[in-house]
């Protein structure tokens, strides 16, 4: 079974530039999460999708961050414009749902560096 796929793995941009991250969850997983992880810290939830619906985006900085999950499969997270403080690893995770559905499978992450 293929795992969660994320691209790119690394991204270096100048501040004020836009950037986008892509995630393809495990086939059949209805729940998709985007997390931000700073060095030495635990993942921080940005947004959670149930199929194509964003059901928890309370921690997403909506002035510069946006996300979409068209057709309820893969998802894109965008930052525009990027700031120096956005440098972090952006993790995508998926979950199958159901009784044990909360077990999350993480992708390798995208390491963003904003210069």
């Amino acid at each position, binding site marked *: 079974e293929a795992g969660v796929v994320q691209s790119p793995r690394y991204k270096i941009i100048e501040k004020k530039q836009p950037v986008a991250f892509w995630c393809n969850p495990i086939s059949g997983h209805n729940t998709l999460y985007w997390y931000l992880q700073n060095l030495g810290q635990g993942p921080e939830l940005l947004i959670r999708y*149930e199929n194509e619906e964003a059901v928890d985006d309370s921690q997403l900085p909506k002035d510069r961050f946006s996300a979409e999950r068209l057709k309820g499969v893969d998802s894109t997270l965008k930052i525009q414009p990027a700031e120096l403080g956005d440098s972090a690893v952006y993790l995508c995770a998926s979950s199958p749902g159901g009784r044990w*559905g909360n077990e999350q499978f*993480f992708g390798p992450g995208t390491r963003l560096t904003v210069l």
Partner: protein
Amino acid sequence: QQPVQSPQAVILREGEDAVINCSSSKALYSVHWYRQKHGEAPVFLMILLKGGEQKGHEKISASFNEKKQQSSLYLTASQLSYSGTYFCGTEYNNNDMRFGAGTRLTVKP
């Protein structure tokens, strides 16, 4: 409501045991445990649900005290491969997950 983990770091010799704790100030639906090695994605270890059910790896054990809103992860007879950062994730309702800051475990030969 980020859960609080303790200790922040622990160093062991192979074969020694360790306990990692996770506590919440709010009533929990479930507790998850993940391990993350440097530069890699977090990997699922165990989930403990309110009511006593749990799912996880055979070599990993954990407890969940619903009244105290606390969970502990027990690592026995540690191996070098156990090294990494352990995160607990707490759910206050279905799928609303928050992670702790992590406990860095180092196992030495």
